[in-house]
């Protein structure tokens, strides 16, 4: 879709703002909740490693540090204990976890993390280590989990937890902890109230700037996401409306022809009295012309329908191409048999899963096969087959021994209403839409179509589909 069209469809910012949820959706919050709990186990392991490190003075002293392992032990136990509780509550809650409970759980987790970080930062000498940086990821996550106001409150709680130990140390309320081992020069920050205050303010400023920037970006992204969702919903509504209008238009166009044809049948079969032979011939020709016009109208509407569709609005599923092709070949045999044309299907060695819809595959294959039958000579043969290509694609081909296409007209055969001269001579009644329909179908399937042809010797159409890999469930034809 082009930019201007998309912009035209995007709802106004004001309207979207009112409808946009202020935080993640409940299912996203639930995913984040479990991720948060799992990630915390990594933090528990790291704290355990820190404790082991602190328990061996030769290791810690090698860096000129002296760390009290009891801080690591306390934080490890607190983190592990609270994490077990959070995990249990999340598992035992009704599923899906209600949104208020999700918020309460996430709020509790962030706050207990702040308290643990405060304790760890105090035990690691406050500003002597960069441990306070670990508050930042929680501030960022808060902007995702909570509303802007709530995340600001969380940021203030982070500032309080990060600065309280150093303030209390400076005030002499709690003992000063330093991890700088004896013999090394200790940092004098704890001893200076001015430096302590400056440092605390710097932390507060950094945290607030972090919250402001991230929350602004998050808010903007959330708004854009909402706008895109609303635009997509509008597109779907438009698509439904288009289908309704097309259905009605098709009915309105086909109904008069159906009525004319009904009269033709009644006349032909003598329900209005016997007809002289010339009159009967005229009636039959009226009926044939009626059929061709109906076919053309249906083809034009179908082509317009496909042309206005986007590959993304079609729900493609994994289908095995082989049985679908077999079914279409069987159907194509009906018009081929009276002309003694043989259709030979060469099966692939293995299933050929592609992403498609049955309806699109029907449109594509029926048009290719019908064309092959129409432009074959009586008594000819048509080869149809599938094969897996080494590059991860699946090739389908339809090869006839018919009239072929002049080389200088090959590049125009997929244009609607175009018919090559020899095609018109061979079959004056064609509508020139079959290959245009095939090309549009191929576009919607994300496939490629190619043709090789020599006049008088036949044509070979090949369609190349992407092979569906992985463990996608492959569906066969339902009926």
């Amino acid at each position, binding site marked *: 879709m082009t930019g201007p069209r998309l912009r035209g469809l995007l709802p106004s910012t004001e309207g979207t703002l009112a409808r946009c949820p202020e935080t993640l959706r409940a299912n996203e919050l639930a995913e984040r909740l479990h991720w948060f709990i799992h990630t915390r186990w990594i933090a528990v392991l790291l704290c355990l490693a820190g404790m082991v490190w602190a328990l061996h003075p030769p290791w810690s002293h090698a860096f000129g540090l002296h760390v009290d392992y009891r801080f690591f032990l306390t934080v490890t136990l607190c983190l592990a204990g609270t994490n077990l509780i959070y995990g249990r509550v999340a598992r035992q809650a009704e599923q899906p976890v209600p949104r208020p409970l999700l918020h309460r759980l996430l709020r509790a987790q962030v706050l207990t993390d702040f308290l643990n970080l405060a304790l760890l930062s105090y035990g690691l000498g406050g500003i002597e280590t960069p441990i306070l940086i670990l508050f930042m990821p929680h501030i960022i996550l808060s902007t995702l989990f909570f509303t802007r106001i709530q995340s600001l409150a969380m940021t203030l709680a982070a500032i309080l937890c990060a600065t309280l130990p150093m303030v209390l140390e400076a005030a002499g309320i709690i003992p000063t902890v330093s991890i700088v081992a004896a013999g090394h020069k200790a940092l004098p920050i704890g001893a200076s109230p001015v430096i302590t205050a400056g440092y605390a303010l710097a932390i507060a400023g950094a945290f607030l700037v972090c919250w402001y920037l991230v929350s602004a970006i998050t808010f903007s992204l959330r708004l854009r996401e909402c706008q895109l969702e609303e635009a997509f919903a509008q597109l779907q509504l438009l698509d439904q409306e288009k*289908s*309704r209008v*097309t*259905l*009605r238009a*098709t*009915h309105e166009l*086909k*109904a*008069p*022809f*159906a*009525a*004319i*044809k*009904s*009269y*033709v*049948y*009644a006349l032909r*079969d003598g*329900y*209005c009295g016997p007809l002289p032979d010339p009159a009967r011939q005229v009636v039959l020709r009226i009926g044939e012309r009626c059929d061709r016009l109906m076919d053309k109208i*249906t*083809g034009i*509407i*179908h082509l317009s*329908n*496909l042309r206005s*569709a986007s590959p993304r609005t079609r729900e493609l599923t994994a289908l095995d191409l082989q049985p679908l092709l077999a079914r279409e070949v069987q159907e194509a045999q009906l018009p081929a048999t009276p002309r003694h044309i043989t259709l030979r299907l060469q099966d692939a060695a293995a299933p050929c899963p592609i992403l498609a819809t049955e*309806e699109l595959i*029907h*449109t594509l294959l029926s048009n290719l096969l019908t064309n092959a039958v129409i432009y074959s000579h009586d008594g000819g043969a048509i080869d149809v087959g599938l094969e897996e290509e080494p590059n991860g694609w699946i090739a389908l081909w339809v090869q006839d021994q018919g009239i072929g296409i002049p080389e200088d007209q090959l590049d125009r055969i997929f244009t609607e209403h175009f018919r090559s001269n020899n095609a018109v001579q061979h079959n004056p009644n064609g509508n020139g839409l079959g290959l245009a*329909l095939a090309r549009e179908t191929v576009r919607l399937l994300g496939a490629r179509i190619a043709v090789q042809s020599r006049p008088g010797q036949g044509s070979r159409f090949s369609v190349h589909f992407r092979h569906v890999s992985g463990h996608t469930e492959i569906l066969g034809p339902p*009926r």
Partner: protein
Amino acid sequence: MARILLIDDDQDIIDSLTLVLAGNGHAVTVRMDTADLVAGVRQTDPDLVILDIMFPEDAQAGFKAARLLSQHPATREIPILVLSAVNQRSNLSFGFSEADISADFMPVQAFLEKPVEPRILLERIDRLLRQAQH
């Protein structure tokens, strides 16, 4: 021969089909909309209903009428033959066909596309009438 109720909004379809049906000895009554359907059907007491799907007032009026007739105790035994100009063979990426006949979506006994060959229509009517008698 049978009493057939033909429900269609197109006068030409009604007239042309009446030529065929009456020409084969059936007694044809006609309705051009689906209003007060159950009462109308009970009044004419048909052996079979031929029903269009799209009406000017409602593109799905035929479906609704079929569901109504198939649920009402007084009419649910009457076989319904749907005759519509728009179906799956129209290649329009929507539509319906005989394969879509079901109790909830299209509770009818047969589906034919307009225009229909008189021979096919008469054969199908005969088959439905025979099935209804058993």
